[in-house]
């Protein structure tokens, strides 16, 4: 697989805009972000990435700074590394060491939890819980084990990459909407629920470049909530899994096996098609 890092404008991110490379020298209010195409990719050498970043720094020198936790340089580097690493195959790579050193586990977890909570919201776990927006009462994807699910399928190694990507997108979103981000939490966490939602609508749109990266993670959040997919189902129910409880998944018999002796209204509820025979169409 080859990697091409395609510089595109922020407005193109996730909204299905052009994926044609935009010349680095174009005058944009915030600068170019590096993104990628999963197909026809060419891995850029680190030196190439650094050279482009330097040019960006020069071009943007003196422009109005936006209150973000990470610098433009850092942002560009992170997205570039994410793109390069992701395209190798998220299940086959570790986190590039340079990137891993920049992140701490807490930031990664909070960002991924905020992502999961945007998909299936829950209530805050404790006062001051920032990852969970707390827009509903009851459990959401986080309480249902979204992180456990992602780890269960071996994603723990790529969660930092995903968090970096989400945070980079959050920074771009904030810039595009004149939102000042709280620098004490990761950028995606710093967005309020409505902004998180609006961003993920773009990120997960079927035509978005970001779709292929984040849809699988979204699916696993749903698997965590709706099926407790990291546990045997009977065990999950016996442990009171909040997602299965919320959807009303029935409990098995005492031996852990499902059987439903009562299952039918036992009434004739329709007339058959006049031309049907033995239950078959004519």
């Amino acid at each position, binding site marked *: 697989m080859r990697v091409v890092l395609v510089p595109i404008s922020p407005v193109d991110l996730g909204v299905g805009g052009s994926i044609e490379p935009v010349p680095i020298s174009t005058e944009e209010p915030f600068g170019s972000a590096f993104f990628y195409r999963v197909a026809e990719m060419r891995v850029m050498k680190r030196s190439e990435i650094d050279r482009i970043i330097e040019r960006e720094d020069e071009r943007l020198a003196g422009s109005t700074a936006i209150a973000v936790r990470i610098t433009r340089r850092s942002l560009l580097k992170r997205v570039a590394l994410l793109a390069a690493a992701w395209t190798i195959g998220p299940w086959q790579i570790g986190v590039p060491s340079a990137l891993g050193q920049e992140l701490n586990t807490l930031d990664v977890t909070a960002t991924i939890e905020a992502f999961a909570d945007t*998909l299936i919201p829950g209530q805050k776990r404790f006062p001051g819980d920032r990852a969970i927006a707390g827009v509903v009462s009851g459990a959401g994807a986080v309480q249902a084990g979204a992180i456990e699910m992602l780890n269960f399928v071996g994603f723990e190694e790529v969660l930092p990459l995903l968090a970096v990507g989400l945070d980079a997108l959050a920074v771009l979103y904030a810039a595009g909407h004149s939102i000042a981000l709280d620098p004490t939490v990761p950028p995606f966490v710093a967005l309020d629920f409505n902004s998180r939602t609006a961003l993920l609508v773009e990120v997960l749109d079927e035509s978005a470049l970001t779709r292929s990266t984040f849809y699988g993670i979204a699916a696993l959040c749903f698997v965590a909530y709706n099926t407790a997919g990291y546990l045997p189902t009977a065990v999950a129910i016996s442990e009171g899994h909040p997602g299965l409880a919320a959807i009303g*998944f029935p409990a098995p018999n005492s031996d852990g096996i499902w059987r439903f*002796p009562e299952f039918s*209204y036992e009434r004739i509820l329709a007339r058959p098609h006049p031309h*049907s025979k033995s239950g078959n*169409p004519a």
Partner: protein
Amino acid sequence: MANETTDVLIVGTGFGGSIPGYYLAAGGASVIMLERGPRFSSADFMQSLQVGTFSRFVDSIAGTGIDVTAGNCVGGSSVVYYAASLRAPSFIFERRGTLGRRLWPASITRDSLDKWYRRAEEALPVSELSWNDVPYAGGVFAAACTRAGHTCQPVPVAVDLTLCTNCNWMHTGCIFDAKRSMLLNYIPAAEASGAQIRPLCEVQSIQPAQTAGYRYAVSYQQVDPNNYSNYVGSGVIEAKIVIIAAGTMGTPVILQRSAQRLGGMPSAVGRYFSANGDRVTVAAFDDDKVQSLLGLQRAPGVGYEAFPIGKPIAAMTFDYLNPSAPEFSRFGLQQIYFPPIVNLIIGVDGTPSWFGVAKRDLTSQWRSWMTILAMTEDANEGVFGAPPEFGNFKRIGPASVGQLTYNTAPETTYGFDLSDAASRSIMTLDGLATLNLVTSTNRVQCAHPLASCRMGDDPETSALDDSHELRGHPGIFVTDGSSVPTSLCVNPSLTIAALAERASSILLKRAHEYGVEVKEVKSLPQS
């Protein structure tokens, strides 16, 4: 070292492989059946949605514009199917599709296939359901149809009703041996007649044999049972007759990969794929309305709230199967159960359309849901790209990516729209339910892949003649879902079984042409 040899080599052990496997072995041929998946029995199956359990024997294959679910084990998709066993309506066999001429071979009509349907029904066997056997979900579907002025009937199922516990775990393999998969009839009968079944052997390609008296050499890789992407060995078996029944997602890939060594392949191999026109929607019922409008109560104060209870398919209306209606406007409409692993894809009104607070609210009513499957007439628009180096598709961690592209044709979209409207008119009448479409993805969700190596009379648009023989390659037969020319407007398993019964009869008559002497076999497998 000389290659291993056999009279008949069968690729795949689902309906299409097991049925000829039984007849040819019972007729006296030496038969080897290669299956890429593992071998499990009811003792191995688990009622569990834990990732990594059911995925040992079911593949979800992402193509372009389509997601396909297919079995991957001894018994094939019969192990994970929902056992709905319906004969296709007569008009199906007269379909002309977008080509403007009959797509099925002239020799196959509903009338001519009925005797083979009967045999398959008897062998599986298939049970007719009484209304007492229809679970709550089917009952609500039927009552809603009645109230909307429609007919509806119980669906025949390949289930031993005396063993069935209505647990609704058919998709993970039946632990009670109530569901009648190939593991309980044709496969044991084939083995009793001497057929060898070899699991975890993934056939890659076919080439001319080197040994005198044998026509083809089949190459396979042995699959690591703990990682299906790893190969731990390989082999070659030479045969006088080769039957490809690797499934609609596998058969064309093997044949495409073999094209060069076999000196070409009919152009219809890997083309004309049909998703059986599968179209999924979800009705979410207002339980008060179930009680007041439909007059149903399953417990005091509870009308329905029983989505996870019962057999997964039990009721269906044939009202949209009017033979005189235009092609692409007809469909079967069926009540079905989807486990909550697919809750992801179901949509809500507004933005976001498949996640967020409104979706969470909809999911909280999950017990009041009912999945509805429309099986429409699609336009056979699926096309397979170039095969991967090994296997039927590329496994990437927990995902599988195939070469199939399905760009939904206008004719297919038309059928989807009509079936959505029909479901809406029945289910939302007087506020009985809301109807929710799949919105998380535009991709077609297909559990019934067909027609990727289809039969027909026209060599340009069919890969097989009406005896299932691959054009230009005498002695290679294709007997699985890929041979079915069109979507069926019903669940395909019984039609695949009936066609395999018919093909087996042909094979027994013609085996001597390929140097295999067999006797006539009239008896069904005893189970």
